[in-house]
């Protein structure tokens, strides 16, 4: 609440800047048109024009807002023109990829923490894996998976997974190793088994780390799903909207898809944050 006023101020400043930038960026096209039509533009006409072009370089905020309104509230959510429908398509791939990435990440982390060989062999490659521009080869992955009969949701989810497993591995390795020597020694004095140590000490201790990485992983998963949608033939999803918008030069459509994607991401991350607060509070580990 304390932040409400500053945030609103910043948002207002951004909107003002945005309108200004729209005038600046769209002016050349307005003049270009006017010149070919042989008319003079007054300043007010110019501004009005820059804020209402069909395919502006930068659409004005109200144009984007109207587009979002039209494609969410005014469309049936089953319609292919509804952004809610497309968000759902992206969301499902995101959630699946996120789930797969989390499971893979935790599994790898457990392996790394409990097995020296896995730790030494795999960990450097886990880091290297992220230097491969997966986003750049996403199209190939889609086609190759297609060749072995995997299509639809799964290929997108796999790209999501590739991006989201990494923060989870890194975070969970840290988390599972976060119990200090004293706590581990204590388990030893009680002659606790490896499994008992894992379930009663390592896993609970790793929770704060887990949630922090889950937030990063979720943001990554969305990027993965959207990028995975670009080359699947602009079929459906926010990525497809971005692409189709881009293909037809529909900047308004691009921006609305972008903003909805950001809102989706922010919502998902916020939900994890909420769960984090509840769980950690219950566990007495809230910072």
């Amino acid at each position, binding site marked *: 609440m304390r932040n409400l006023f500053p945030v609103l101020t910043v948002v207002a400043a951004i909107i003002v800047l945005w309108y200004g930038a729209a005038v600046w960026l769209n002016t050349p096209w307005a003049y270009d048109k006017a010149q070919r039509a042989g008319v003079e533009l007054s300043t007010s006409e110019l501004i009005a024009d820059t804020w209402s072009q069909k395919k502006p370089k930068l659409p004005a905020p109200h144009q984007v807002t109207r587009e979002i309104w039209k494609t969410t509230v005014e469309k049936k959510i089953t319609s292919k023109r509804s952004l809610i429908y497309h968000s759902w398509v992206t969301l499902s791939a995101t959630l699946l990829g996120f789930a797969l990435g989390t499971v893979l990440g935790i599994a790898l982390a457990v392996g790394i923490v409990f097995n020296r060989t896995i730790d030494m062999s795999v960990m450097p490659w886990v880091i290297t894996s992220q230097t491969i521009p997966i986003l750049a080869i996403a199209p190939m992955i889609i086609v190759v998976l297609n060749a072995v009969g995997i299509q639809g949701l799964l290929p997108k989810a796999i790209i999501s997974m590739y991006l989201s497993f990494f923060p989870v591995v890194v975070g969970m390795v840290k988390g599972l190793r976060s119990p200090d020597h*004293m*706590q581990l*020694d*204590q*388990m*030893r*004095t*009680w*002659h*606790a088994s490896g499994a*008992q140590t894992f379930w*009663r*000490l390592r896993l*609970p201790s790793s929770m704060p780390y887990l949630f922090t990485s889950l937030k990063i992983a979720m943001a990554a998963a969305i990027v993965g799903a959207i990028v995975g949608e670009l080359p699947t033939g602009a079929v459906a999803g926010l990525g497809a909207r971005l692409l189709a918008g881009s293909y037809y030069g529909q900047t308004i459509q691009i921006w609305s898809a972008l903003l909805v994607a950001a809102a989706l991401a922010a919502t998902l991350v916020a939900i994890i944050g909420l769960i984090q607060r509840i769980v950690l509070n*219950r*566990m*007495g*580990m809230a910072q």
Partner: protein
Amino acid sequence: MSNNTIISAKDLSLTFQTNDGPVHALKDVSLDIEKGEFVSFIGPSGCGKTTFLRVMADLEQPTAGSITMNGVSPEEARRARAYGYVFQAAGLYPWRTIAGNIRLPLEIMGYDKADQTERVKRVLDLVELSGFEKKFPWQLSGGMQQRASIARALAFDADILLMDEPFGALDEIVRDHLNEQLLQLWARTEKTIAFVTHSIPEAVYLSTKIVVMSPRPGRIADVIESTLPKERPLEIRDSPEFIEIAHRVREGLRAGHSDA
């Protein structure tokens, strides 16, 4: 080594290999502790107090010499859950209630449910924490947390209590209070206690025997048998006898310190 000897170390040595060369944490340490004794270990930082306790607890392997706990090796003693270990920090799990924390070792050792509940209740009584079982550790003061951690080490049937600076992090007044309680508890339960501390008054006040250690290499500089009675009110610390023992301990420490 009498029949009643609970802990017996002979020519114990432990050398850590570090990047800066070997560190002789313990060198030819021999010591016998009888049943029911309260033995304090005191000495400057790095003299091997903690290491010695950890060897007893099978958390560290000696590089030479031998040690028995209850007549068997530390490892067997650990597997038989023959001792409770209390660390400097309370180290309670924030996600478990006080009762849950005390129940933890019992769960691990496979005590049955009813027995667990019974024992938790008993040790909470013992450390005067009844009524706090449903609280979480962070809802308690530092002294209460430390009491809970002692209760946790008392909950299962171990005759030996190993305590590594359990009150090091507490302020003097709370510490006085806990010292008093610990003495009463020891009297009631007749456990054998090995207790590491940095504080001379604490060592003198609590112990039947004070082991003064000196560093580099870690060894025993002096063993002082206390002449204080078993019954010790806090005021005893202003008595000449007390001051005399404290003085001896300080001398022992100074000797060990200066020739390092």
